[in-house]
């Protein structure tokens, strides 16, 4: 007998990184790695499930910045170049490891996977968004939106017009891509403060997610904890709280699955391990060693001593862990069902890039998990939030608490010594953008282009990723540069628009560089 629901959510996001001015740009690799290791394996997984007629449900956010990059011709062209390079390297590896059987079969595995990735990429005419759109149309995955550039909303509380712009631009872009309105939204970094929901309601969004304490510390106290959604007071938008138990099992590298000794070690990459002259053509042109994606070792144990990766063992572990995850959810649901006298919903959100990129076997685990749930038992049913709300429309009304799923659970990851300086600039830029939108109501031609570009630059400066990277303290230079660059561009546009001295040559140049959201309308910033 079915006793509850499991709502799996994959949040996919990368910041907008596109540098046509450089032949080879290190940070663009974030996208290429994620394509090869996460997005393509997930697409392959969904294709397999569809082919086998598995009736599954999964909720997935694709942020507008990620969609823009996946759709971008230049980046598509560059990805193809990137995967071709990898194929070439894998060929050389197959040859080089001929006398090392423990690595030779791995080199062959990578070669096969890279070929597979390339052929899938070409099969979808280089646009992977189409694949996800197909799965949504087949009724298996529900794609939700996010902030236009993944701006961290709780630190925009003083700039509600910017929150509105983040959300409206995202929703408009979603409609352009998927041909319908989004039902739900992934608030960037799960960042919620009371009041955000009103703006969600304005654009017709029905639900969002928060971390567990966002619901648990809501007022009044939620009767069913995180095991039933709540409606936000005053807006009626539904809010689903994250289940911590299931989260930890997957997220944690300490007592979660990804830390298993049989799984592939993320930090041992041939980009760092192999002889310099040999690997040089495949790392950064400046000779800086970087990850190539070819990794031959398993986690092995807690020390630096690593043994070769054995895919067969890893696969068996993934199956075992999928079984373990399902078993734990069954127990959890049975317990909750007796206790609540109502079917609980377990909401388990993860970064999509955790699957494949960080946890190499993640997509395999997901494959086993979904099939086991669909075919091997009847206690749990996979569901999307909108289906759940259709079936369970009566829910408690509360005001959730300020929260995020970041470090320490609130705003500190994005508001600390290393990054707090950005807000005085961002907030002024928001004020200025509102001023422009109010002063220039009907425009065309050059002025309109400048105003639209000003909003693009502001949104790009607001990406939570920059503050996040500054906060982690590693390779912060790029994040600082991006924040400054977009703000400086914005400020110059603001001055030029006000003085009616728009430099068209320069405007064209930054339109070409920051070409995100072709259809943007600056008037949403109000």
């Amino acid at each position, binding site marked *: 007998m079915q006793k509850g629901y499991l709502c799996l959510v994959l949040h996919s996001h990368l910041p907008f990184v596109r540098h046509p001015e450089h032949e080879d740009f290190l940070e663009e690799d974030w996208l290429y790695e994620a394509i090869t290791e996460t997005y393509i394996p997930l697409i392959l997984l969904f294709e397999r499930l569809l082919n086998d007629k598995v009736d599954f449900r999964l909720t997935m956010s694709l942020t507008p910045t990620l969609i823009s990059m996946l759709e971008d011709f230049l980046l598509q062209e560059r990805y193809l170049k990137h995967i071709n390079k990898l194929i070439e390297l894998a060929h050389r590896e197959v040859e080089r490891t001929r006398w090392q059987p423990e690595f030779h079969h791995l080199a062959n595995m990578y070669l096969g996977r890279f070929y597979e990735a390339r052929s899938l990429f070409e099969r979808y005419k280089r646009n992977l968004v189409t694949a996800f759109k197909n799965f949504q149309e087949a009724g298996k995955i529900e794609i939700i939106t996010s902030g236009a550039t993944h701006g961290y909303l709780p630190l925009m509380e003083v700039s509600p017009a910017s929150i509105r712009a983040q959300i409206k631009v995202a929703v408009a872009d979603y409609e352009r891509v998927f041909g319908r309105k989004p039902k739900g939204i992934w608030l960037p970094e799960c960042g919620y403060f009371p009041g955000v929901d009103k703006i969600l309601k304005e654009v017709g969004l029905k639900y969002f997610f928060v971390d567990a304490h966002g619901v648990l510390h809501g007022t009044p106290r939620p009767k069913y904890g995180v095991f039933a959604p709540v409606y936000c007071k005053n807006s009626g938008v539904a809010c689903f709280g994250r289940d911590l138990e299931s989260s930890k099992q997957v997220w944690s*590298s300490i007592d979660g699955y990804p830390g298993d000794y049989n799984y592939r070690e993320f930090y041992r990459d041939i980009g760092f391990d192999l002889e310099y002259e040999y690997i040089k053509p495949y790392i950064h042109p400046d000779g800086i060693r970087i990850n190539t994606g070819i990794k031959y070792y398993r986690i092995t144990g807690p020390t630096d001593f690593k043994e070769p990766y054995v895919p067969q063992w890893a696969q068996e572990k993934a199956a075992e862990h999928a079984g373990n995850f399902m078993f734990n959810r069954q127990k959890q649901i049975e317990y909750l069902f007796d206790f609540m006298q109502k079917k609980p919903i377990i909401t388990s959100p993860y970064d999509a890039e955790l699957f494949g990129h960080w946890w190499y076997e993640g997509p395999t685990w997901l494959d086993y998990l979904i099939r086991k749930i669909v075919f091997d038992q009847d206690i749990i049913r996979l569901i999307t939030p909108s289906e759940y709300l259709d079936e369970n429309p009566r829910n408690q009304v509360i005001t959730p608490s300020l929260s995020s799923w970041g470090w320490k659970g609130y705003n500190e990851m994005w508001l600390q010594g290393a990054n707090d300086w950005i807000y005085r600039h961002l907030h002024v830029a928001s004020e200025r953008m509102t001023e422009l939108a109010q002063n220039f109501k009907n425009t065309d031609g050059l002025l309109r282009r400048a105003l639209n570009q000003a909003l693009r630059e502001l949104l790009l400066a607001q990406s939570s990723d920059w503050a996040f990277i500054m906060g982690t303290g590693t390779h912060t230079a790029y994040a600082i540069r991006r924040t400054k660059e977009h703000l400086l561009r914005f400020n110059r546009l603001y001055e030029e628009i006000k003085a009616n001295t728009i430099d068209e040559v320069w405007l064209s140049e930054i339109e070409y560089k920051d070409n995100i959201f072709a259809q943007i309308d600056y008037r949403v910033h109000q």
Partner: protein
Amino acid sequence: MVIKRIKKRLSKIMGRRKARKIAQLPRKKAPSKIKEEVLGMQETKVEGAKYSHPSIMHLKRMMPEELPTQYGKDKIVAQVRDPWWIHVYWEITPQTIEKIKNELKEKFYQAKRVLRVYDISHIIFTGDNAHRFFDIQINEQANNWYIDTAGPGRSWCVDLGLLLPEGKFITLVRSNTVYTPIEGPSWITDEEWMIPEEMFARLYGMGFGLGRSSPVGKAWQERVRRALFSGVLASPGIASMASPVKIPQVRKFWLVVNTELIVYGATEPDAKVSVQGKDISLRPDGTFSLRFALPDGKQVIPVQAKSADGQDQITITPIVTRETK
């Protein structure tokens, strides 16, 4: 620097030395050493891995020009960091300072620059009806501050102003209102329930919920038919998962040595060449080179070339032995 030093001294004075520095995020090979997990730490780590490029710091990159230090407007903005702490940043224009100097004359130099933090929970703040307030003396150069409110679940407003020797406070700028969230479950347990209008209409039309049966039926029968993955479900134990065995602290010094072998040569560009029985392709000039990881032991590497017409054939067989001591 100055600000930092002052903040440090101040927090000492106030006896509130809450660690505010970000704990070192776990990077390479951390797992066995971390004992307790801070909320969101794993998420931070995984998300950080998306932007992984360890040596990027060596890259010299052009930094754009600097952002303006001032925007020419008096303002103070407060933001919540967590249930206890709020952050404020401000800007006071030189003109405002001049103006106040002219008004206060001598007294200006005796005045202390102060942040006045008002607890304005559940009221409409008029400037003099706060439940309570406390002052934080700040330095002239400071332009932002972290404030320990010690009060989750309250509303706050912050004035930046001057405290005159006789105790009079002059507000320069007043912040927005912020609300620090409660840090545990709410004490309020009254319940309110809701069915959205459109849902209710739909349910009503279907005879109050009876129309939508619970999802038993076809899907389940199909599943039973396909017992595809049953059996794989192993024991429910999580025993194998990353049992963090305690390893005694090892010293960090290390050495890795690997060997590779390059086999290279040349023949007629149109010849057919095989190495260890596997065909290889030649460069346009007839040269070739192959690179192998060389493990311990003996490698016999016959290199065979055949002329294009098949008439001639030469085999050369290097034998290489690696021995590690």
